[in-house]
């Protein structure tokens, strides 16, 4: 934060717009409204500290002048070079941002750029936690070669949140010199031992070193739709093929070893992906006055906990099947169940056989399925209210309640009343929480205990039982202390 004025930023107020002048100044005259919202936009800046777009409320009588703040974007720069030092032009570099939405987390493609003729790249992004990766592609310097993907942090890093991503702050430039492996590619021809119907196969290759290659599949001819060809460098790979069909997903796994020549005769034996039905029940003590929720309202997802999960498979959502039952279609892997409250109802417990899904991962092997996931909801909630104060003065705030007892939700977020600094949660599950209030929205991985450490003195613990309505006043973390 430089606190310098920004010229030529577009300030909008209730449908009107002006550009700021040289000293960052702007003016709206003949304002007839008694209240309204400001929004400010400028390429290369964000109005929210976490990279979003925020509006600033205004009321007549508010002290003038209005001060609006912009945060510069962050940028990843670097080079991509071959092992012999030659720059690799036209390589796609992609930044995926860790996204925390309260019920889960994923990697969202946020920026991408191609390297120039010197192998240099620039990817501008909002501040946050990132993975930077180059995409597999053909080498423009040598036809017949492919450039293998590389990732920062390197593939196979530990799955703790501190090392599987790179943190970049507002206004920061991080430079990475990337050295992907460049290799000759050979044609691998595979057949499916059953008809694909109208489905189109998606194939991923994974090498023993954790290298993951999404493969562009070429159908070799239209009359042999159960044949797929792909290109791979020498090595041994586990190939996973997924096909979406009318009956549901099917998946096949096989291994292939490529040694300096084309390979044919690979066979995929497709099998249905396990389907786990989901059942809903009410807790015994629940009163029936409140309209009972349905499963789709609980935002249930299964989040893949393997750090190198394919981005497309990282979050599995509920599907409603033809017979109106609700289920997860789950490829083999390890998952964490996430969900959210719906109105007065919260997820009290979730189980799969003997596994407590609020505390343990769901591990699915091939060929299982049929066993239901049982979700129990309850409307025996509590409420919590209080006032946010910044330097002793009631203040606009964002309140975050982080459960420390088992919960399907990682955080309960609330925007306080900007007029008097008050906040009020009407229905929260009983349990123990850490509570913190920020001056602005603060998106972070609240399932990671390290997230709250910098704000230690302002974090309050609170235990709430069903039916209680305690009060908890919070000391707001000011914007200046939120910069990451």
């Amino acid at each position, binding site marked *: 934060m430089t606190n310098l004025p920004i010229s030529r930023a*577009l300030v909008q107020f209730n449908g009107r717009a*002006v*550009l700021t002048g040289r000293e960052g100044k702007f003016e709206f005259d003949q304002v007839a409204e008694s209240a309204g919202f400001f929004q400010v936009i400028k*390429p290369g800046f964000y109005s929210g500290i976490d990279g979003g777009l925020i509006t600033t409320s205004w009321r007549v009588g508010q002290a003038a002048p209005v001060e609006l703040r912009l945060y510069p974007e962050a940028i990843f720069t670097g080079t991509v070079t071959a092992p*012999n030092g030659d720059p690799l032009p036209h390589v796609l570099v992609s930044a995926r941002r860790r996204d925390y939405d309260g019920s889960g987390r994923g990697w969202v493609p946020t920026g991408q750029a191609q390297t120039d003729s010197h192998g240099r790249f620039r990817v501008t992004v909002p501040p946050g936690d990132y993975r930077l990766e180059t995409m597999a592609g053909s080498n423009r310097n040598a*036809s017949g070669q492919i450039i293998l993907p590389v990732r920062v942090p390197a593939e196979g890093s530990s799955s703790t949140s501190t090392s599987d991503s790179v943190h970049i702050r507002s206004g920061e430039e991080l430079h990475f010199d990337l050295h992907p492996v460049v290799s000759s590619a050979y044609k691998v021809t595979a057949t499916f031992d059953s008809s694909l119907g109208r489905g189109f196969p998606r194939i991923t290759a994974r090498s023993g070193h954790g290298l993951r290659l999404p493969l562009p599949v070429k159908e070799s001819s239209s009359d042999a739709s159960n044949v797929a060809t792909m290109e791979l460098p020498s090595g041994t790979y586990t190939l996973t093929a997924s096909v979406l069909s009318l009956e549901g997903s099917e998946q096949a796994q096989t291994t292939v070893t490529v040694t300096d020549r084309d390979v044919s005769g690979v066979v995929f034996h497709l099998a249905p992906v396990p389907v786990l039905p989901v059942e809903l029940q009410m807790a015994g003590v629940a009163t029936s006055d409140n309209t009972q929720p349905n499963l789709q309202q609980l935002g249930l997802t299964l989040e893949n906990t393997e750090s190198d999960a394919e981005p497309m498979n990282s979050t599995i959502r509920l599907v409603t099947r033809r017979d109106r039952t609700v289920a997860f279609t789950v490829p083999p892997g390890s998952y964490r169940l996430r969900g959210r409250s719906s109105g007065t109802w919260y997820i009290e417990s979730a189980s799969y056989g003997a596994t407590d899904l609020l505390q343990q991962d769901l591990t699915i092997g091939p060929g299982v399925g049929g066993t239901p996931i049982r979700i129990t909801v309850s409307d025996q909630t509590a409420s919590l209210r209080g006032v946010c104060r910044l330097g002793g003065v009631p203040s606009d705030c964002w309140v975050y309640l982080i459960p420390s007892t088992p919960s399907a939700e990682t955080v309960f977020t609330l925007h306080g009343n900007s007029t008097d600094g008050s906040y009020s949660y009407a229905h929260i599950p009983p349990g123990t929480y850490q509570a913190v209030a920020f001056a602005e929205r603060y998106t972070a991985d609240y399932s990671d205990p390290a997230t709250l450490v910098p704000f230690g003195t302002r974090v309050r613990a609170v235990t709430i039982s069903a039916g209680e309505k305690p009060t908890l006043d919070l000391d707001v973390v000011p914007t200046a202390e939120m910069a990451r």
Partner: protein
Amino acid sequence: MKLTSLLRIFSITLLVACAVGSIAVAQTKTTPAKSFSITGILVNSTNGAPVQHGSLTATLVPRGSAGSRQSPAPIGPIDADDHGRFSITLPSAGMWRVVASAPGYVTQAYDEHESFSSGIVLTAASPTLDLRFQIAREAVITGSVLDEAGEPVRNASVSLLAIQAPRPDSVPLPTRARARTSTDDRGVYEFDDLSPGNYQINVQAQVWYAMAAQQKGFGTANQPPLAPSLDVAYPLTWYPGTDDSAEAETISLDAGDNRQADFQLRPIPSVHLRILPDAAAGDRRIQAYPMIEKISAGGRFGFTPFSAHIDPEGGIDVGGLAPGRYVVRLQGRGQAVKPALIDITSGTAQTLDMSAPSTMANVSIRIDGIAESEADSVRVSLIDPSSGRNAARDGAGGYFLRGALLRRGEAEGASRTMEVPPGRYEVVLMGKPNLYLTGITAQSAEAVGRFVTVPSGSSTLNLQVADGRASVTGIANKDGKPSVGAMVLLVPATLGNPDGLNIIRRDQTNTDGSFDLDDVLPGQYILIAIDRGWQVNWKDSSTLNGYMLHGVPLELRPEASVKEEIEAQAP
């Protein structure tokens, strides 16, 4: 050798729809009776210095029968050593297309000129060949795009156009974009991997604050009018800074050149267009969203970003447009996409009434001379001769909307219709390589040779189509030896006569002096070979006439397969 000769004849179209995408699975047969190889040295075309870190591939080129156009998988890449030397061992005799790449160089086939190159012909009698393989350093153009305040313009669309001298035949100039890129956060762009040649550059960009200020969604909300200083647009701007394509500077690049081409964009007041939906068709109730496409002289069809608001009378106010010619489409529920053409000039707002009769040309096309079943597979393109752009494809009223909205069913039987801006077009057939156009008759339109002029409203074109293209193969010699890398031209005897055949076909001789011209339209021609002729300005009519005096006259009948041995002329 011209690997893509079939496509090249239609290269003026943007629709290289032929099955280029399918890669044949070729299992090379082993057991070579002899050892075949191509050796040589890779050198810089400018100074002859050996090229480092080069690599090569060799691909067998099927010759003769038209059925074997599928190209086999390439052999390689084979790395050249630090002195540029290479040696490629090959499994068989035949004609090989050898392609070299190296960092900082343009990827090229052997002795490549324009899109032609020489195939390396190996036989049992001459199983090896040593090449001096010249490749050109890539040229690069970089630059920045700044706005009126000197701040970078992000995500500006920068197009590079290859400019070619006009040809004496009727093949339109392919001024389509050679490459397109976007500016980065600094407003910087780069075009690399460029071959020597002549280029022009243009920039299309949005005024970010104008777009942001108007971004209120497609609602009926009553918005206060935008301040004039924010209601602006950037015109399509040509280097070095003009909105007139005739004043665009042509940048000449030699091998290895590094050029800078910077832009500063100046906003102009945006023009507003008020679209009145077709009330009878019920557009007003469902708030159809318009699609607006700019037709620029650069041969570009691009959707234009704009802002739109519905006014209380149900009209759609479109802002943010720069002057130019646009096609506006508005689709109501269950309706066909209905294009309307409008020329937007600077100044006051213009109104487009979608219920008014369309100003587009509605062209019905009938195909005669071949079986109806065969006619179904023929695609007809109308090519704008000034831009080389395909104005329309038949049967594809909504060709820009793939999938659900695509209007189908118009190409049933041997009749189909297409909607294009009124004007003069060249009629080009696609789909069946062996077919060719022998004549056009028109109702409510004008037809001269392969060119038609269609007015607003309905018109009909009857295309007479025949089957059976011809081919010419042969050897070019010079002083009793094969002339390698010679330019071969097949010039229609009727060149210059607007009613006659007007397409000049070309090829480059291979290492044995051989050449192949496939899919030639039947007619009378003069065949010419010019030894080391790639610097000859054949596009100049009097120069060409000088060579034609010593050429070989050929009469090609349908399906004829002619072999000619000719003497290459001195350049």
